[in-house]
């Protein structure tokens, strides 16, 4: 079934006329996503890949029809305004691609989303992709690559790193293991749909038989996933790899969320916690496909 995105969802691209907006609209359309409209203030009336561009999200909704998802390709300082615009217009799922969105802006977006019953992925996300169905964001880069790399199958993939989302799915696919949906939760500390929320969605998806998770140092997402397993809220097998083992405390390793602060968010802490609740945690990234294969064979 997949989670978050499939070919039936109606998608808007905010910032459609920018460098990324144009390139990834091409990706999304080429992959089969139902992109119905784009918005770039001031560029209403234009077209990108045959998609009509509007000045506002409200107008796009009125003229092109209801919108299920909006994907944002907008410079970081302008993201809050665009995200609030989409939420206020009634969009219930946002995919916020840009990096470096100020954290207080994310908190404001989160607040408004909660009130409106909306959700968002990111910021700083490569996006979401359901193999054979649709893609949101940048994942795969080009439609041909995305089609070649990702195959449909029984595994849900959730990752804190964008490139790793693609590589996990690709290396699994090479071993004959396909995916229901690939989700890059984003590299920031505060993200709309962190690992525990994604894992909950996979729990509800009948096609997802197991979840492969790429975690990192920093934040408490992986520990929260362990809590869900312990509470019986997530019952499917979990195979995980935690990155950043060699990182020192106090230094950020690129991702704003990948920082060990005050002893919390350590590699050891996450691995121990996950193993304690019965998850499979591999020592080496290269072991993920084999470990996943074993898990799938066991539950078959």
């Amino acid at each position: 079934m997949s989670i978050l995105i499939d070919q039936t969802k109606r998608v808007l691209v905010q910032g459609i006329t920018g460098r990324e907006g144009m390139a990834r609209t091409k990706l999304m359309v080429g992959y089969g996503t139902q992109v119905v409209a784009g918005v770039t203030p001031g560029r209403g009336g234009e077209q990108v890949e045959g998609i009509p561009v509007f000045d506002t999200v409200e107008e796009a909704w009125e003229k092109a029809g209801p919108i299920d998802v909006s994907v944002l390709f907008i410079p970081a300082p302008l993201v809050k305004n665009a995200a609030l615009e989409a939420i206020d217009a009634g969009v219930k799922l946002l995919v916020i691609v840009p990096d470096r969105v100020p954290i207080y802006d994310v908190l404001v977006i989160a607040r408004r989303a909660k009130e409106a019953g909306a959700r968002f992925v990111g910021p700083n996300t490569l996006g979401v992709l359901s193999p054979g169905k649709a893609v949101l964001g940048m994942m795969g880069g080009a439609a041909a690559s995305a089609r070649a790399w990702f195959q449909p199958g029984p595994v849900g993939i959730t990752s804190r790193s964008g490139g790793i989302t693609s590589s996990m799915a690709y290396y699994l696919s090479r071993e004959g293991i396909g995916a229901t949906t690939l989700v890059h939760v984003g590299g920031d500390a505060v993200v709309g749909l962190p690992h525990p929320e994604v894992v909950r969605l996979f729990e509800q998806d009948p096609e997802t038989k197991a979840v492969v998770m790429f975690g990192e140092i920093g934040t408490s997402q992986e520990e929260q996933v362990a809590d869900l397993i312990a509470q019986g809220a997530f019952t499917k097998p979990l195979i995980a790899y935690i990155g950043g083992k060699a990182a020192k405390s106090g230094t950020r390793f690129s991702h704003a969320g990948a920082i060990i602060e005050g002893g919390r968010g350590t590699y050891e802490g996450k691995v121990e916690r996950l193993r304690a609740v019965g998850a499979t945690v591999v020592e080496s990234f290269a072991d993920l496909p084999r470990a996943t294969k074993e898990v799938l064979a066991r539950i078959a």
Partner: protein
Amino acid sequence: MARLYEYQGKALLQQFKVAVPRGRVARSPEEARAIAEEIGKPVMVKAQAWVTGRAQMGGIKRATTPDEAAEAARGMLGLKVKGFTVEQVLVEEQLDIASEYYAGVIIDDQAQAPLVMFSSVGGTGIEEIAAAHPDKVARTHVDIETGLQEYQARNLVRRTGIGGKLQSDLAALLVSLYDLARTTEARAAEINPLVQTTDGKLYAADCRVTVDDYAVFRHPDLGIEIAREYDRPPTPLEKIAYAVEAKDYRGTFYFIQMASDFKKGEGYIGFHGAGGGGSMMSMDALLRHGYKLATFVDTSGNPPASKVYRAARIVLATGPIDGYFGSGSGVASQEQFHSARGFVKAFLEAHLDVPVVIRLGGNAEDKAVEILEQLNGRIPAPVEGYKKDDSPEFCVQRLDALIKSGELRDVPPPSPRPEPQRPYRFETVTGGTVTYDHAVCATCESKVCVSECVPKILTLNEEGLPVLAITPEEAKKGRCSECLACEVECLFRGAGGGYVHLPIPGLDET
């Protein structure tokens, strides 16, 4: 997260109506003496550095007289504290402390909201205090749209057993602290200890404020030079790298200098990854082979070739590395040939003579590796490009083999680029200049610049020479995406008349 010094935090607290001990910073023992004289009573002399536990390191001293203050300052200034050199000391009045509390505002990433914490017991280790004395610590989340209401703060303080006027005073202070955190976009703003003096007044005796890296650009008044969290002051190269990133939102360029003053043969590698997660993993692979990192770099999120070029130049400026290793997730969504062109330009200019192994797996990897490997025979270094089916481990083994073989190609350095005879120039968004020497272009058969230009902004004029198909203003605004095709492809398959000059402020002058 960008940290402020204690004295900066205290200046902000004053702006937000929170009392701080009277005093100011001194940069010399004489200044410290003068300030102590002004204050006219015993003072505290406190080293200004981004570390905790200053007291144990001799970074906090009492001084009864101005002379003692000068002595204390003399002992601290120039001291190296966990990698930081103390350049300033804060000289402030000693407080007659009756009680100590803790007040702090942090971002709770799980709740997606700010969290205000208050403890009726101050001192280090708020987490430990909370665990040992749960009835003395209270927390409350704040609705970002309405802020911390005064009554919420009062309720919070009451939960720790404090009543009466003190409760109201503390509540007002917590509201001010929250306003400070919200206004400056602080990741964390803490007052510890929050002191009540014997006359009943409240003072922020020490404070720690860290500002969200991604918000620094809209707070120029805070004077934060570089928005990164380091456990030591930024190096000159880190400042240069930050300047490149700060002005250019296309993709990410993250740079940490991991070593300095190293020598050739010590096993230091210029590490240049793509994507935080993949880079960290590839870094692990390199370390497992006994190599050391000179740099940790992440250029990802589809940066233009110009950004990767600048990143590579900064890596090369770090010192005499034994090899250049690039690896990210291996299955990058961004078109990898942009990075390839960035590397090519940087390595050609450096006439690089240490082995290069770059794992350029992902979108358009075939084209990317083809471009990268064109370097073979043009520079002394052997260059190998790898794709998504090659593991980081394998790539490190290749680098290891090339370094150990020591084999270099016999390629003389190129003669310096001559002055263009018929220059056609236009400027780019990051202050670069694209120059086509039309005298050379006239001899070119392929004119690959036009076909390879990624944003497709070039055309041939009546003379069949490459010119902009758009206005120079549009190019400068960003329509020229600095893809470097008109230099790199021109060099490989054209007459070599194209050149993109990309300045790196701070680097070119060294």
